[in-house]
């Protein structure tokens, strides 16, 4: 026996509320993050991610309060992304109750943020979030078609090779990679398993596959073929198409050793 593959539930939050819809317009308020997070824990979620998409300073202040309230009722790990602009933002989020913080744009701008964060708080709480899209071969990338890393919610290309950037971020101190396929995000046709595997084979830390979950078999593929340590699920749960329990039951049926939460407390 070894580590149980994790089913991670992601909630997009803005100004302290869970929102759904396109990132930058047409957002709908769908509820209280604290209540939803606790509900997902009860359903068997192994971890909760808050992705803060607040645009304003006030919204970011709300995030700290939200994390504090969540930590008082949530007894599985909480990762918070989107709230870190600079190294000084890490401490307050962890003190408020986040177990890990994930960074993307800020780490691309200033990779020393990863080193500084890991030195002060430990690698286990620093997650590098890599948003990647497939790109055709181009000069300077002898390995042929690959993936490029993007920042600012997938809108700004960095020119960085996504796999190499993930490896670099880990060398600098990140203890986990949250890897989102921009191509697959929201499509529900499955994770980019090739991308996931390319990164998982390259880095000595856990990789969380993200973007594309439509049904349980997609999680199986991410764990088995993509070598992911965890799979992130969002829309299909929030839309009520399935539950964490149903996903885990299917995975268990396929011989995937997910943490079971029914029948007593021992897994």
């Amino acid at each position, binding site marked *: 026996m070894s580590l*149980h593959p*994790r089913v991670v539930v992601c909630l997009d939050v803005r100004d302290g509320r869970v929102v759904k819809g396109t990132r930058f317009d047409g957002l709908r308020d769908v509820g209280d993050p604290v209540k939803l997070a606790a509900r997902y824990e009860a359903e068997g979620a192994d971890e909760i991610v808050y992705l803060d998409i607040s645009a304003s300073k006030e919204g970011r202040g709300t995030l700290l309060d939200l994390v504090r309230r969540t930590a008082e009722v949530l007894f599985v790990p909480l990762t918070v992304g989107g709230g870190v602009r600079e190294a000084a933002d890490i401490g307050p989020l962890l003190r408020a109750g986040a177990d890990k913080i994930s960074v993307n744009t800020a780490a691309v701008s200033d990779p020393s943020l990863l080193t500084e964060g890991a030195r002060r708080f430990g690698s286990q709480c620093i997650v590098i979030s890599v948003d990647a899209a497939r790109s055709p071969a181009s000069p300077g990338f002898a390995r042929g078609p690959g993936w490029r890393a993007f920042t600012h919610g997938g809108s700004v290309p960095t020119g960085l090779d996504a796999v190499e950037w993930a490896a670099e971020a880990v060398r600098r101190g990140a203890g986990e990679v949250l890897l989102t396929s921009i191509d697959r995000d929201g499509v529900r046709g499955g994770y980019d398993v090739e991308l996931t595997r390319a990164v998982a084979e390259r880095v*000595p830390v856990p990789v969380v596959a993200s973007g594309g979950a439509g049904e349980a078999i997609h999680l199986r593929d991410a764990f088995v073929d993509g070598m992911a340590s965890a799979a992130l699920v969002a829309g299909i749960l929030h839309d009520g198409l399935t539950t964490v329990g149903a996903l885990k039951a299917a995975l268990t049926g396929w011989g995937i050793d997910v943490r079971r939460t029914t029948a007593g407390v021992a897994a």
Partner: protein
Amino acid sequence: MKVALFDYGAGNLHSLGKALERGGAAVEVTSNWDRALGADALVLPGVGAFSAAAEALPADRTRVREALESGLPCLGICLGMQLFFDGSDEGEGVGIGLIPGRVRKLDAPVVPHMGWNDVHGAADPLFAGLGGGLAGYYAHSYNCDPDDKSVVIGWTEYAGARIAAAVRYRRSWGVQFHPEKSSRAGLRLVANFLEEVKP
């Protein structure tokens, strides 16, 4: 029951505080050793790095060690468990020296050991009602290597090796995983500790 939750000044104590309160404890978060050693039980949380936490220990380590040896109940979590030992590969600093041994860097292809892993518990009140163990949430890069393995009351397998998931010495228990992040089973473990040590 008054439980002192020691604050090294490093991080999040909210979930652990709430887990203890759910178990019936009156929790006082403190960085004051007089208060910490004067409570009914002491909890050393698992946040931050070894060196920084070791710096938060009193210069006179024997004070803490003697309090624990003479019966002050203690629960050390992750780094808090590691502080029971003499020293760590993670960095400089001297631990409490309650349990002879050292904290060593994990020897595995994937480090940190992060996520849920099975804890196989011995017959100890800490695991009461848990059916011999639980899935515990881990997030660590170093683990405890006691000289005398008989202090180990719970094991976890990782990367083909066994790591000490839980130790016990007299009225002190240490767990490498985070019960406050291990959902219902973890809360039960925290409640078990409080039940076992209540005056």
